[in-house]
């Protein structure tokens, strides 16, 4: 199962990487600013949040001092979430969108989902780098904990990849999956502590968050980036277990469906 998939991904890494880079480079093809939109868009979002939540709505979170405390909190969860949901929505369509390959080539299906994941990962690297610059510029002192940030960031993308394996496979047979996905993503975002603090919601919702695949990674982001604490081992395990389990499960489904996917696409 997993070993074969990893080996195939390694074998085709050149292809995946090149296609993802091309995707990033050409996503805004034809626009005046071109490639720079990859930077301009997240930068604009960060600045917008900063203005809104420091000047207009003056939101605060208990432990966070300074005018930009809430902005940093929001961005720490929101930027990876945006990458995750982009990975999900594009990954779910990846097999259908690349039908021309799958109709004629023996290449593994998941290459095209991996490609969207890598592309989303590049976007996240850019947006989160901007956030780090913003944090330093507004007076946040970096800590050793920041060095561990790539782990939860990777988990966002990995989880997006692993769930897309499943949704992307189902999407081939059921176009409704594509319609359902934005709705599910909305619900998923609002049930995770991204725009609010974990304790700020009713107890029932906090219970839901315990079984929410993305929540451990969101919590880890907040703890490492803002509160300079090490996440509990429980958080670490949950954060890695979700995408691992999803990968195994989704891959098993994909493997089972593979002949029919090729027939139907």
């Amino acid at each position, binding site marked *: 199962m997993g070993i074969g998939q990893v080996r195939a991904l390694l074998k085709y890494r050149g*292809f995946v990487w090149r296609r993802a880079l091309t995707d990033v480079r050409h996503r805004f093809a034809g626009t005046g600013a071109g490639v720079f939109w990859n930077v301009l868009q997240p930068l604009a979002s960060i600045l917008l949040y900063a203005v809104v939540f420091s000047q207009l709505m003056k939101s605060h979170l208990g432990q966070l001092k300074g005018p930009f405390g809430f902005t940093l909190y929001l961005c720490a969860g929101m930027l990876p979430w945006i990458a995750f949901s982009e990975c999900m929505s594009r990954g779910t369509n990846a097999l259908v969108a690349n039908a021309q390959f799958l109709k004629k*080539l023996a290449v593994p299906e998941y290459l095209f989902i991996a490609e969207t994941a890598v592309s989303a990962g590049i976007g996240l690297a850019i947006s989160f780098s901007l956030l780090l610059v913003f944090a330093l510029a507004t007076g946040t002192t970096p800590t050793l904990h920041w060095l561990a940030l790539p782990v939860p960031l990777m988990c966002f993308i990995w989880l997006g990849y692993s769930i897309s394996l499943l949704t992307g496979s189902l999407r081939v047979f059921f176009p409704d999956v594509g319609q359902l996905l934005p709705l599910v993503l909305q619900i998923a975002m609002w049930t995770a502590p991204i725009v609010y603090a974990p304790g700020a919601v009713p107890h029932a919702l906090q219970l839901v968050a315990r079984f929410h695949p993305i929540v451990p990674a969101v919590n880890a982001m907040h703890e490492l980036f803002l509160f300079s604490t090490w996440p509990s081992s429980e958080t670490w395990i949950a954060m890695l277990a979700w995408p691992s389990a999803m990968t195994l499960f989704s891959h098993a489904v994909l493997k089972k469906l593979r002949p029919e996917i090729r*027939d139907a696409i």
Partner: protein
Amino acid sequence: MNEPIVTASGISKRFKIYPSPRARLTEWLSLGALQRHQDYWALRDVSFDLARGECLGVIGSNGSGKSTLLKILTGSLFPTDGTFAVNGRLLSLLELGTGMNPELSGRDNVVNCSRLLDFPEGYAESKMEHIERFAELGDFFDRPVKLYSSGMHVRLAFSMWTCFEPEVLIVDEALSVGDVFFQQKCFRRARELLDAGVAMLFVSHDLGAVQSLCKRTLVLEKGICTHLGDVHAGIRLYYAHLGGTSAPEPVEQKKSVEPSPAPSLAPERTNENPERPTELAASGATLNGLMWTEPRRVETIGNLRVELLQIAFQADGVNSTASVAQGGQLGIYARWRANADAAHVNFGVAISDRTGRILFARGEINADIEPYDFRAGTEIITLFSICMDMDPGDYSIMLTAAEALADSSNPTGWNQNVGGERYSELPCAAAVTIQPRADGRKLFYGVACLSNSMERIESGTR
């Protein structure tokens, strides 16, 4: 016999046809208890093998399972039953053309395709020069593929195909794109690859092409292999499958053709000698308004003591481009110049079909015309007039000027087998298109209409 490179045994393929996504969902959720699909067997128990250097033609009407079979061999579909083994690198021309990123240059797409086809890093780069040369795309090789014409697309794909060194090659109708010269180039290259030991699976509706490339053929009919073996027997069987629809059945022809041949056929005209104006001025009247164009000089050979300057065409006496209705008289005018004194020049013409096979070739000495002593600096126009009573399609015209050798043992006084110096030989000087007859009648089947007559002789009652 050498070891087969491809063996397929008992390949079957069933597609499950669901009327709607909901029907599929119902069946899945009930874990198969509620059957909502219909089975469609695209292939049933197909077996064959393919040796190195062999070309197996796969023919069959639409929906007979040809593409399914190819896709199974390529690995993009999974057989429901049966096994197959490919003991070498298999490339399929149907996969090379697709998957090009329109935003990337031809060069980058070559690299991408090589990765996709699982070639090692650096492989495409090492072949790049070869590919670039073969594709003849010039500056376009480094421009985005979205700017390419469809012909350029094919050129690029074909060049990759030819340079990626496959051991088994699947060709799916791909040789029928592009102009006649490009098609001839494809066929030539295909034969080279076969000679080099590449095994080929050639899928086509073009039976002429199948006949010219393959010795064996596999005939599919509704997913069942009805014939595996001799190509001619296979093609006969294929026509039998087609039934009365469009098959050139000799029986049917006898019924429909009147006892006397249609007057418009005029077979005698084909034997007319090509006439040649002796001087430019002499036949000036008939030369008025000819649309002179440059010949295509690709692959020209010869010492160019005699050079072909321009060519022009007349169709049934009307100045025209290189297009003529079936059975029409095509006048091929060629303007030659001697760059140096050239003795005993024998001008010639040849017509080849799209597979590169020469259908007709004739030199002036075949028509009892004395070779021409060409003085340096002078010009001459030759006219070859040919009744193009051939199958509609694209053909290429070769024009030659070569030295005729005297041979007293031959009744013409000239050696008709061996020539001397080659002054100029333009193997694809021009393309000519033969259009179907305007009145829609089809007067014969096959490559060309041979001089013929048909009659009935009453033999009394039984």
